[in-house]
């Protein structure tokens, strides 16, 4: 049975429709890669699954438990009451493009604060668990440092540890390497690779095609808020069925970044400009 089942998901910001009646399902342990041009709705899709944005309508069921209530294509989404939502949300880990580590806390505290304050673990136990998690990710020596003292790659790995600290059923990655300098990308991808190998269920929005091909079980190409094409990465990348997929991949391979020749900064602007209007 699918661990995540999304149906009829729709979301507009004002008059701009970002997601159109979208459906997807993810099996336990599956690695789903999401690719697509800026503004295609990838980030909004992840944010809706995490209820950082509330969808307009649709259903999102995680491990048999629905988020909110928006049954059927016609009915409007009703969000869960705050406390219920908080409890459901912690079963999903979210890794942000810009890390968003808590600037006032050390790496260790970033990873222990969730178990301590949300799960109510005793301080010593939360810290011990956080320390173990950091050393598993090769970050033990950075435990006492503040985010501003870490490189981008280290920050993102701490952010992954922070998400893992809540023992999520599912991890969402929103372009986790696109805000990083090129030489720092590999350490983050390596961490994600190991996480995938450990059996974690993951949805990864990324433009790293090599990573997608190697780690992904399935790739989903989105454009204009719809799933245009999906399949095994090797097949989709080498023999895309849709013209739009073909064009996107060609552009990506040529420039290393889709649609926005000025690089990831522009990508961020365009992407979040459309996605975070609320």
């Amino acid at each position: 049975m699918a661990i995540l089942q999304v149906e009829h998901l729709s979301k507009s910001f004002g008059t701009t429709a970002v997601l159109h009646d979208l459906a997807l399902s993810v099996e336990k342990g599956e690695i789903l890669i999401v690719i697509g041009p800026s503004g295609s709705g990838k980030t909004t899709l992840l944010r809706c699954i995490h209820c950082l944005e509330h969808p307009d309508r649709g259903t999102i069921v995680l491990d048999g438990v629905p988020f909110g209530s928006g049954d059927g294509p016609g009915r409007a989404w009703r969000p869960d009451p705050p406390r219920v939502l908080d409890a459901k949300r912690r079963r999903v880990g979210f890794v942000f493009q810009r890390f968003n580590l808590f600037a006032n806390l050390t790496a260790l505290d970033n990873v222990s604060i969730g178990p301590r304050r949300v799960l109510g673990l005793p301080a010593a136990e939360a810290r011990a668990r956080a320390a173990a998690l950091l050393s598993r990710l090769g970050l033990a020596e950075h435990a006492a440092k503040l985010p501003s003292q870490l490189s981008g790659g280290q920050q993102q790995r701490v952010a992954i540890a922070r998400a893992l600290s809540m023992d999520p059923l599912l991890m969402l990655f929103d372009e986790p390497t696109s805000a990083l300098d090129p030489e720092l990308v590999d350490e983050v991808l390596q961490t994600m690779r190991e996480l995938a190998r450990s059996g974690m269920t993951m949805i990864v929005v990324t433009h790293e095609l090599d990573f997608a091909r190697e780690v992904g079980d399935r790739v989903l190409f989105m454009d204009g808020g719809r799933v245009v094409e999906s399949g095994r990465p090797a097949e989709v990348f080498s023999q895309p069925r849709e013209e739009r997929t073909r064009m996107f991949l060609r552009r990506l391979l040529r420039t290393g970044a889709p649609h926005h020749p000025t690089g990831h900064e522009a990508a961020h602007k365009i992407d979040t400009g459309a996605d975070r209007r609320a």
Partner: protein
Amino acid sequence: MFDFALILESVPFLARGAVYTVEVSVLAIVFGLVLGWILGLAAVSGVGWLRAITWAYVQFIRGTPLLVQIFLIYFGLPAFGIDVPAFWSGVIALGLNSGGFQAEIVRAGIESIDRGQTEAARSIGMSAFQALVFILVPQTIRRVIPPLTNELITLTKSSSLLSAIAALELTHAGQLIIARTFAPFEIYAAVAVMYLILIAILSRGSALLERRVFVNY
């Protein structure tokens, strides 16, 4: 011409005025800080009527002279049978006034923190309240120390307006001596120097707080 002996003679009396000024200011600062944070947090809460009340309050405080606010409390409240002594009128007026300005500082401080911090907090299951307490407020405190220091300096100096209701603070103490000695230059110069010393201590304390108590992040 410049009579140093007169200044030396006046120091004990002026010092008593300075102590009064410190007492009024410290109490008003504490009151203003509490009020400022409550109003500042209300201003960023999602609750519409709380925001409206805060907005109206800040508009009133900013839009009317402090001296009028002091008079309203000291001369105005007795009309309702509420008699507040000069000292407490000063604490209340300065505290209410400073609270309005501090509310704006706190509001701006919280709003200046990246939205990603809140989202990350919510993403690990924290409630909006937990995100505020554990993530936003600690970062805001550090950010607002410099503007709050300015506000506290302004408050301390504004306490000189309490001379208008005959509170025995530093400026009024100076006025009383001048009435007796007819040496306004010497005495006001001495008064000015004493304010300078008080403010220097306040600034120094704030700088220490910023550097020592709150690590650099």
